[in-house]
């Protein structure tokens, strides 16, 4: 029994080591359910959805998270899509918040649950260029709530404007940053363009 308990302890410690974990198991909790086709899509429902992804982490190429307010795998190697950690990346978060289709010719509204693992077909640069039927570019000075600013490397959605002229941006910025709302000045940054989703209903 003594040997069993000693070995149990050793095994327990080994299980905590990174290499002993199935790398990564977070995606094992995700699903591939069909999205729900919607006739409505309001900007504040978009705020609700993106805000709920805060604290859930960042995963390059990812698009799956839960709502426990913790990044389950906060120390994944940056830029490694095979890490399979929790969270979306910038374009994955935008794709899901904007209820887009994986077919870039469809402009309908598709509600993806948080644990539905989907990134969508668009990079930040694609969004910047307005690629895909649901997307289009807008003048930055007119961009409003739940429109976005995109560069060739990043996209963040406008959560709300501010008194000092910058924007509160909800974004999955980087592995170390996680997903959160940050104050940004993308609006006046020429490396960013304004981009929006067609079809808001309120």
């Amino acid at each position, binding site marked *: *029994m003594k*040997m069993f308990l*000693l*070995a149990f302890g*050793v*095994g*327990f*410690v080994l*299980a905590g080591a990174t290499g*002993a*974990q199935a790398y990564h*198991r977070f995606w*094992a*909790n995700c699903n591939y359910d069909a999205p729900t086709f*919607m006739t409505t899509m*309001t900007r*504040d*429902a978009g*705020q*609700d959805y993106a*805000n709920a992804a*805060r604290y859930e*982490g960042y995963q390059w190429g990812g698009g799956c998270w*839960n*709502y*426990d*307010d*913790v*990044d389950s*795998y906060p120390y994944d190697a940056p*830029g490694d899509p095979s890490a399979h950690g*929790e969270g979306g990346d910038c374009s994955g978060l935008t794709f899901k918040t904007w*209820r887009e289709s994986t077919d870039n010719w469809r402009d309908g509204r598709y*509600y993806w649950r*948080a644990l539905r693992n989907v990134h969508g077909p668009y990079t930040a640069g694609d969004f910047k260029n307005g690629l895909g039927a649901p997307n289009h570019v807008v003048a*930055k*000075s*007119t961009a*409003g*709530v739940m429109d976005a600013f995109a560069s060739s*490397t990043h996209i963040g959605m406008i959560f*709300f404007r*501010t*008194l*000092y*002229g*910058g924007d509160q941006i909800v974004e999955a910025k*980087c592995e*170390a*940053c*996680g997903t*959160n*709302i940050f*104050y*940004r*000045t993308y*609006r*006046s940054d*020429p490396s960013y363009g304004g981009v929006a989703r067609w079809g808001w209903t*309120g």
Partner: protein
Amino acid sequence: MRRPGIRSLAGGAAGIVAGVIGGIALTSASTAGGPALAVPGLEAAHVPPVLTTMDEPVTLRYAIVCPPRADGEPCDGSGSVFVRAGQSGSFRRLALSRGESSAEGRYFVELPHEIVASPDGFSYYAVLSDDASGATVMVPAGGDMAPQRSFPLRDPTEVVLGTHTFGHGRPPDERVVTAPWGSAVGEAGLAGSRELGFSGPSSFDVAADGTVAVLDQVNARVERWSRAGIQAIDLQVSGGLADFALEPDGTMDVLEPPTRTTPAPVLRSFRADGSPRWAQRLSDRTWAKLGAGPVGPTVQQQPSEQWLPVAEHGAALGRSAQAAHGRPGRPFAGGREVLVERVGGGELRLAELAGNVLLRSWRITSATPLGEVQLAEPHGNRLVVVTKTYTDDRREYVVLVLDRSGVANSFAVDSPEWAESAPLARFRLTGSSLYRLGSTRAGLFVDRFDVEVSR
């Protein structure tokens, strides 16, 4: 040493297997989660009209942000605004209406004329609810102790900027710091990649003697450039894009963003030698700018859109104490405050307050869109303002030295910002010198511009 028997070996093997299985099961349950364990809380957003023009109708708009509904529809919210004419007295309750559009906040109330027309302005706070859960949130968090305060621009000095001509930025009077990218003393840290974008030193400040202190968060240090040379001081910081301020006694304040493991913003205070004094979570969820106030660091935050003190006389303030002392403007010496409101695409309203009395104000309009206000600080009997003007593919800063009669001095400054920094940390005013933090592919620099005028 006795040789282990078969039973011991079998027991040991079984123990390891059981331990590994148990460990994996436990870490899976604690990290991956499976079903949702909690839902995010109630959030809000609001831009207060801190400076109104005479007879301008005022509609207060709020976004109420709830946990997402299973049916994909927006939050079922409601709320009330408690408002009064002037800056003291009892509040009157007005119910918020729910509008068809959420583009500027779905929940709104049009303020009655007798409140908007008050010569002393008006003050208010809101209580917002998620009717599905019963959760409520107050905006600003200070409620009736530190309400939103709005003041009428009675006779503002009008400044018309017209259409901005790009490409005529004034060269600096002096380049005071040049630091190539790197980690040695005298170099500046660079993080990121071509795929993800680059960030360099996120903020800086300048002491009264002209010493330039750069927060090199990538290398977890502050570097000081002075006549005595370059000095590096290690700091325990997260490495995120932080704002930075020097206090007169040498205390260093680092305002950190949320990170993957610390989801709320934190202000860290360090002694002049870099040893930590304290760390304090902010009252609000998001910050825009850190300033060294007359009695301690103060931070412009959202959703309150107020300047909240985070410490007084060296002692950190808890979140409720911060919220209870929120003010609409940034505090300066002598009880003065500077209020800033960017309106629409090309309007900027500014005012100087003493207590709750508006001393003077400016209304600036531009045919070219205006971006963020980087700096608005008193300089003698003038106000120095740095704001950005932009088109979809160009940007420049406009520096305005304002007095009661208008623009005493103005010039444009280009914006070489190859690496990302904190959002409103590009400029610092020390004495009559304006300093700019910039970067290129080769490294970091700090430039000085003289703002003195002889009008």
